[in-house]
């Protein structure tokens, strides 16, 4: 693939996973996906606050891209989320495929009208396709306080016309980035910033694309199903390990896409184990987990051996202080405890 030779040295320097098989971080996988798409399609461009220049973004996800692709394709915006997001919609209507960075997912609320009112409804209303991607660095647990830790995905899952993805691994981060950029609809790509440098993985060879709308069973089990996404997939796997030691076999389903949901995969694992725990880092109340739980309780009720349980953050802003934030969000231990109870139900 040309994109895998093009600028190979830079790839090594950047370590963005384009040098096949190498283990890369979640962050490098995202950068690699962006570079891959910038390379294969001249209509792809990148903008947002501080993504350009020598800086390359608050998390350095876009570091080096200006040097490689030029400041026409990768550029800074003023502090204007609402309007640079609608600007992306206008560019997309003209056939470009903008990748817009929200500096933090928390600031996506500043662009709300541009997303939920204009972009989400346009194709339905008059047929104009809006193929942009908003990258939103989300989630907490890293002492960033109420405004740099949010998980706002439920707002967008409830909004007709959007697609929403939330990769949990470097391979999915890369594959879903490519799928999102090539999708002809507005896609919100939640990248879990706690994972940026904390997990590594290898990227499959070739033009790796993970289809939007497909969940992945990341651990098979028979006693209880844990359905999660983002950081909580890793917490669920840790929890499952703990349970395995106790002889409880937990299956873990990584949703990967939140809109559309992989209904078939969700119902399949629910029917298989009959006991389901749904987990996410967002607050539990009216979160995506409520839809997943309601769906299961409605569609495979006959196959359930226990009530569907949900774990999520408490219904408060995300507190800053370590003891408060730890009490606020789910983790492996809380997941194991809830799953253990379910298994014993």
């Amino acid at each position, binding site marked *: 693939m040309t994109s895998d030779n093009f600028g190979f040295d830079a790839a090594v320097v950047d370590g963005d996973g384009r040098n096949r098989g190498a283990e890369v971080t979640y962050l490098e996988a995202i950068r690699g996906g962006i570079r891959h798409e910038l390379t294969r399609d001249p209509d792809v461009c990148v903008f947002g606050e501080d993504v350009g220049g020598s800086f390359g973004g608050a998390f350095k996800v876009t570091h080096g891209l200006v040097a490689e692709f030029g400041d026409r394709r990768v550029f800074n915006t003023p502090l204007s989320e609402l309007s*640079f997001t609608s600007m992306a919609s206008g*560019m997309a209507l003209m056939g470009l495929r903008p990748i817009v960075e929200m500096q933090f997912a928390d600031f996506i609320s500043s662009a709300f009208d541009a997303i939920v*009112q204009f972009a989400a*409804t346009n194709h339905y*209303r*008059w047929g*104009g396709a809006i193929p942009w991607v908003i990258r939103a660095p989300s989630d907490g647990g890293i002492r960033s306080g109420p405004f740099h830790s949010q998980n706002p995905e439920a707002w967008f899952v409830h909004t007709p016309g959007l697609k929403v993805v939330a990769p949990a691994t470097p391979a999915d981060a890369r594959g879903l980035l490519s799928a999102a950029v090539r999708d002809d*609809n507005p896609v919100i790509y939640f990248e879990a910033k706690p994972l940026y440098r904390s997990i590594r993985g290898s990227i499959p060879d070739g033009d790796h694309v993970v289809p939007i709308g497909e969940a992945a069973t990341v651990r098979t089990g028979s006693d209880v199903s844990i359905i999660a996404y983002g950081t909580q997939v890793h917490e669920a796997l840790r929890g499952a390990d703990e349970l395995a030691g106790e002889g409880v076999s937990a299956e873990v389903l990584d949703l990967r896409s939140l809109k559309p949901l992989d209904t078939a995969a969700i119902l399949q694992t629910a029917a298989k184990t009959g006991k389901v725990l749904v987990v996410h880092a967002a607050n539990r109340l009216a979160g995506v987990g409520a839809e997943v739980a309601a769906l299961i309780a409605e569609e495979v009720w006959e196959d359930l051996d226990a009530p569907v349980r949900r774990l999520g953050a408490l219904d408060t802003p995300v507190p800053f202080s370590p003891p408060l934030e730890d009490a606020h969000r789910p983790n492996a231990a809380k997941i194991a405890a809830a799953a253990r109870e379910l298994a014993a139900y």
Partner: protein
Amino acid sequence: MSLPRPPAQPSPQEAAIGAVPERERIEVYYWMRLAREFDDRMVSMWKQGRGVGGTFSGRGHEAIAVGAGWALQQDDVVAPMHRDLACYLLRGMTPERIFGNLLGKAMGVSRGRDANLHGMGDLSLGIIGFISHLPQSLPVTLGAAMAFRYRDEPRVALTFVGDGGTSTGAFHETLNMASVYQAPFVLVVENNQYAYSTPLHEQMRLPDIAPKASAYGMPGLAVDGNDVDAVYGAVAQAVARAREGGGPSLIEAKTMRMLGHAIHDGAEYVPAELLDEWELRDPIRRYAGRLLESGVEKAEIAAVDARVVAEIDAAVAAAEAAPLPDPSEVEADVYA
């Protein structure tokens, strides 16, 4: 992207502008008349209960919609707002399709999905449809301009905003970014003295909007919004500047909203004298007068007046006869 040098301050000469070219004047008259005929017919239909939902009249705004639209070329892009029926028409959107949209018909521009003049986008005509949330068309249209800049295409993107819409954050953010990027973007402000029931002085401290452009280092020009030549001249100049890489412009067209905010609104809050005064400046009657002075035959104008009546008759008949969408289509096309 690499940024241009500091701005040339808008020079006063820029106020010296031209009118609609001689040979195009009767056509310009035709589009204003067609819009007025459409508008009058629409209002009477709604009064008779032959409408669906509400609708907006653009009466009195024809010179702005036509003057600005006429200044664009075929492959430029425009996002008209809810007073700009005439602009949709002159871009080639048929009265039939627009009536169909108002009536929620399957052959309407939005195929029954969007209401009144909303959602009337058609990229084959270079038209971006608007949403209610004012004024999202501004940043969206800036995006179209940015796409032209991205591809070095000599194209321009133009949109409209009302006096009310200038109070929104999107107005400021869009003009600021347009000037930072020196995008080929033109904004026409339709200052019709009211935002729904709210008069200008309750919306902004100063009555003039054109000067606000200077905050962005952008040319800002005020014109008589009831004079199609004046609007055309100012916009044509701004469009030419944008096309040549000279960056964005703001044109304030001063006019008056002659009917209520929407069809249901009697606008009792508007002083009658104000309307009487503006009625004397009706853009279409004024332009007809100018045509006669310039030697156009009375018959030629009468022919246009007759033609538009026939065209609107046919459009209304076709739209009213057309079927509503099938309920089975309700979930189609949410996604591309």
